[in-house]
C-alpha cells in the first residue's frame, strides 16, 4: 500500500491526529456520558449501536514515566503479569478466559498510562468487568512465572527495538531529547535494568498505583450509560479507594545546543532523516497552542500537496517522501516530527539544508491562509472517522482522560481546531521550529560514516 509517510512510525500513535470534519457545520467529536463511583472510579460510556458489541477498557493513570529510578520497564512488566493468576484463581490465564467468552483482549503501556481492553458481545460485559475488577485488587505474583515472563519481555525488546535500526534510532533520539524528564527512558526498559526487575518491585508498583481512584473505565458500544451503571457498580463498586501518590515528573531545562544523533547499521539500505521538536501536548497547557500545532503540522507537511512534499519530492526531487506530523498525546510534552527519505543520489546534508531552507521560508512568509483553511477542514472532516468503530473512540477518550484532559476538551476538539487562525499557526511555528529546539536523527548504512560524502 502506498503511504507517503511510511518512512516513519515513531512512538505511540497520534491522539486525535487523524480525524476530520464537516465543512460548515463542524460538530463535536463524541457525545459522551460519564459518572464516578463512590470509590473514585471514573466511567465514560460512548454509545455505538452498529453491532451488539462492546469494547471495555480500564486505564490506570500510571506509566513508564512513573517508574522508580533503576526500574525501567517495570510498568510494562507488570502489565504482562496482570494476565497471570489472581488469589481468587491462581491458575487463571486472563486472555484464555476472555477467549472462552468469545472475546478478544490485550493491553498497552505508555509513558503516561497503562490500559487493558476487551471486546466482547455486549451480554458478556458483566463477566469481563468481574475479571478486570478481580485483577485490580487480587493479583497473585508467582516467583517462577515472574522469571519466565521477564525472559519474554526481554525477547519483546529484542524483537521491537534491538532488531530494528529505525526503532533503535528512535530510542536514542528520545534519550537525547529528554535531558531530565523520564520520557527519555524507553517504555520497554533498558535491557540491563530489565534483567534485574524483581517480584518485590512488581508488587510495590502494583500496590502503589492500581486503585479504583486511579483508574478510568471506558465502555464503547451497544449500551447506554443508564444500562452500564448498575453493571459497573456491581463489578467495581466494592473495591476500596486507597491513597495514590502524586506523579512527580521532573521538567526539562532550556536547550541551547543543536543536537544530532546518527545511527549506522549494516542492514540499512535506505537512509532516513528525521527531526523532533519539543512542543506542548494537549494536556500540558491550557493554551490553544496544541491545536495550532496540529494545524501547522498539517499545513507544513500533512499531505502530498503540502510545501514539504511539493518542494522536496516534486520540485527539487531530493526525497522520495517527506512530511510532518504533531504528536500531542503525552501528558507533559508533545512532539512535532519532520521526516524525509532521501532520493538515491542525495546525501542527508543536502536534504537537511533544503529542509532548513524550506522551514525558514515558511517562518518568514507564514502559511498560506487558504492552506490553513483547507487543513482545518481536512482535520475536522476526518474526525468523523474517529467515530466509525468501537476501539478507537475508547482509546482516544481513555488516553486523553488519563492525561488529565477534560471530557469537554475531547468532545470539542473539532471546534477548537476550526477556531485556529493563520496567525496562531505562524506563532507556534516561529515559537517552536527553532534549530536549538529540534533534535535531528540520521539512519545510515554502515558504510557511511558521515552524512555528506
Amino acid at each position, binding site marked *: 500500500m502506498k503511504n507517503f509517510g511510511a518512512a516513519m512510525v515513531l512512538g505511540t500513535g497520534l491522539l486525535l491526529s487523524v480525524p476530520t470534519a464537516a465543512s460548515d457545520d463542524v460538530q463535536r467529536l463524541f457525545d459522551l456520558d460519564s459518572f464516578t463511583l463512590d470509590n473514585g472510579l471514573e466511567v465514560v460510556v460512548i454509545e*455505538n449501536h*452498529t453491532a451488539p*458489541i462492546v469494547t471495555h477498557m480500564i486505564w490506570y493513570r500510571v506509566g513508564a514515566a512513573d517508574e522508580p529510578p533503576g526500574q525501567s520497564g517495570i510498568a510494562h512488566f507488570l502489565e504482562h503479569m496482570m494476565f497471570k493468576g489472581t488469589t481468587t484463581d491462581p491458575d487463571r490465564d486472563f486472555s484464555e478466559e476472555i477467549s472462552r467468552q*468469545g472475546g478478544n483482549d490485550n493491553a498497552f503501556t505508555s509513558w503516561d498510562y497503562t490500559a487493558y481492553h476487551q471486546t466482547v458481545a455486549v451480554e458478556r460485559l458483566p463477566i469481563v468487568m468481574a475479571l478486570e475488577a478481580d485483577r485490580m485488587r487480587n493479583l497473585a505474583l508467582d516467583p517462577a512465572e515472574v522469571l519466565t515472563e521477564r525472559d519474554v519481555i526481554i525477547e519483546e525488546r529484542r524483537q521491537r527495538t534491538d532488531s530494528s535500526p529505525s526503532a533503535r534510532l528512535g530510542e536514542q533520539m528520545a534519550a537525547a531529547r529528554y535531558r531530565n524528564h523520564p520520557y527519555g527512558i524507553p517504555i520497554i526498559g533498558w535491557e540491563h535494568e530489565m534483567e534485574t526487575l524483581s517480584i518485590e518491585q512488581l508488587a510495590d508498583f502494583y500496590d502503589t498505583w492500581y486503585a479504583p481512584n486511579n483508574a478510568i473505565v471506558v465502555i464503547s458500544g451497544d449500551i447506554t450509560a443508564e444500562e452500564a451503571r448498575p453493571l459497573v457498580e456491581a463489578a467495581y463498586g466494592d473495591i476500596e479507594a486507597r491513597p495514590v501518590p502524586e506523579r512527580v515528573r521532573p521538567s526539562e531545562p532550556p536547550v541551547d545546543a543543536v543536537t544530532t544523533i546518527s545511527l549506522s547499521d549494516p542492514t540499512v539500505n535506505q537512509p532516513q532523516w528525521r527531526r523532533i521538536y519539543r512542543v506542548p501536548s494537549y494536556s500540558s497547557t491550557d493554551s490553544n497552542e496544541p491545536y495550532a500545532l496540529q494545524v501547522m503540522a498539517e499545513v507544513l507537511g500533512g499531505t502530498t500537496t503540502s510545501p514539504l512534499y511539493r518542494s522536496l519530492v516534486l520540485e527539487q526531487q531530493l526525497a522520495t517522501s517527506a512530511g510532518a506530523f504533531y504528536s500531542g498525546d503525552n501528558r507533559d510534552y508533545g512532539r512535532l516530527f519532520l521526516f524525509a527519505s532521501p532520493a538515491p543520489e542525495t546525501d542527508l546534508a543536502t536534504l537537511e539544508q533544503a529542509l532548513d531552507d524550506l522551514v525558514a521560508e515558511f517562518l518568514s512568509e507564514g502559511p498560506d491562509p487558504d492552506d490553513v483553511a483547507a487543513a482545518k477542514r481536512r482535520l475536522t*472532516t476526518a474526525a468523523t*472517522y474517529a467515530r466509525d468503530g468501537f476501539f478507537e473512540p475508547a482509546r482516544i477518550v481513555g488516553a486523553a482522560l488519563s492525561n488529565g484532559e477534560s471530557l469537554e476538551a475531547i468532545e470539542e476538539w473539532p471546534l477548537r481546531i476550526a477556531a485556529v487562525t493563520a496567525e496562531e499557526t505562524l506563532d507556534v511555528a516561529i515559537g517552536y521550529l527553532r534549530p536549538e529546539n529540534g533534535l535531528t536523527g540520521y539512519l545510515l548504512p554502515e558504510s557511511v560514516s558521515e552524512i555528506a560524502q
Partner: protein
Amino acid sequence: MSTTASRWAWLIAPLLAAVLLFASVLPARAVEIQRIVSPMGIEAWLVEVDEVPVISMSFGFRGGTTQDEPGHEGTAFLTSYLLDEGAGDRDSQTFQGLLADAAVELRFRAGYDTFTGSMRTTVGNADLAFELLADALNQPRFDQDAIDRMRAALTSEIRRRVANPGWLSTRAYYDLALGDHPYSRSSRGTPATLPTIDRAVLQSFVDRTFAKDNLVIGVAGSIDAETLGQVLDHVFGGLPDQSTLREVPELSLAGAGQTILVEREGPQSTLTMTQHGIERSDPDIYAASVMNYILGGGSFGSRLTDEVRVNRGLTYGISTGLSHLRQADFYGVDSDLSNENVAEAIEVIRQQWRSMAEDGPTQMEVDDAITYLTGSFPLQFSSTENVARILLAMQLYDLGFDYLDLYTNRISSVTREDVARVAGELLDEPALTTVVVGSPDVEALAPDTIIPYDSLVNRELAIN
C-alpha cells in the same frame, strides 16, 4: 441518512435502479447484507450502517501481481501507487488536493491474485469521492513525472524492505518452495525491472485486469440500495465487460523437510516452518480452523504459546496460520526469538506438530476453540471499513452469500473426532520446511543450505 437527489446529480439512471434480491441476517441482529444489482447489472453487497455519516467501499479485481508481464515485474504494484496520481483532466496535485481537502481516503493494493481498492468518505463528500474513484479507475493519466516519482518511492521502499527478516524469510522460502512460478517473483518489482515499466505497460495492465467480469464490491455505511446502484454504474459502468488474464499455473510445493539459514546479524532470529495447507473450499477447512486455533492460532491458550512462551520464555510471540493463494495453500508457524533459543523452539514445534497429528486435541480444547471462533466472529463487524472488507473477501474467495450464517453452524458442528482426523491428514512434521533468518547456532540447526545475507539483498537490489 441525508443523501439527496442533487448530490447524485451526475447520474442519469432510471429511478428504480437497484434491485434487492434477498438479504442475509447474522444471528444476534448483527448485520444484514443486501445484494444490490445496478441498472447496468453490476453487483455489490451492502450493509447499511446509519450510526455514523460515513461510507466505506472495498472492491477488487481478480488478477494481481501474477498478471505482470515477465520482465515487467512490479507493474501491478506501480499501478496501485499511480491510480491516485492524476486522472481524467486532473493532474497529480489537483487530484491529490481534492482528495485531501475532502479527507477522502483512497487506497489501492496489489496482491498476488487480486488488485483491490478501498475508499472511505463522509456522506457530505460522497459525490466528489465517487467521481474521483471513477476517474482513477477509468481514466488514470500515468503522467511521466508521476511515474518517475512513484517509481522512486517504490524503489526506496524496496531498499527499506530487503533488510527486513520477514522479507528475507519469504524470499528464501519462495525460491525454494515455488521455484520459478509467478508467485515467486518479486511482487514489488526490482530496481532492474521497474525502469522497464512505462505508460504503455501500465495501461495494458489496467486494460487487461480492470473489467466487469472479474470485479467484486462490498459497501458499508450510510447509503441506501438505490443510491448505491446509481453509484455503481457511475464508477464501474464504463469498464470493459471482459478481462484478459494470464493463466496462473498450478503449483506443488517443493523443498519439503529442508532447512535453510539466511545469515543476518542481530540479537534475534526469525523462524518460520511451513508445510502444504488446505484449500479454502475444502469441507474440512472448519475442522482445520479449529485445529489451528488449538495448535497455535489462538495466542494465549494455544499449545505453542503455552509451551514456547508461557512455560519456557523463549519468545514474545509464536503463532500458526492457514494461508491461501489461488494456486497454493500453506500451513505454517512463525516466531521471533533470540538466536540461542532457535534450536529448542524448533524441537518443541516439531513435538507439538507430531503430538497433535497423532493424538488430536482434547474435548475441552475443541469446546474452547468453538466458543472463541463463533463468539469472536461478529466482533469483526466493528466499523464500516471492516464490514466492507469482509463483504469483499466473501466474494473474492467465493465463500457464498450465506457464509456469515453458515460459518457459525459449521464451526459449531466440528467434533473432536473431525479435528483429530484432519490433524492426522494435514499435519506432516517431516515435511516442514524450516527457514531461519538470523545468527543461530549453525551446528544445532544443521541447515541444508546457508544463504549469505548479501547474496539475497544484492540480488534483489541489482540493477543488471
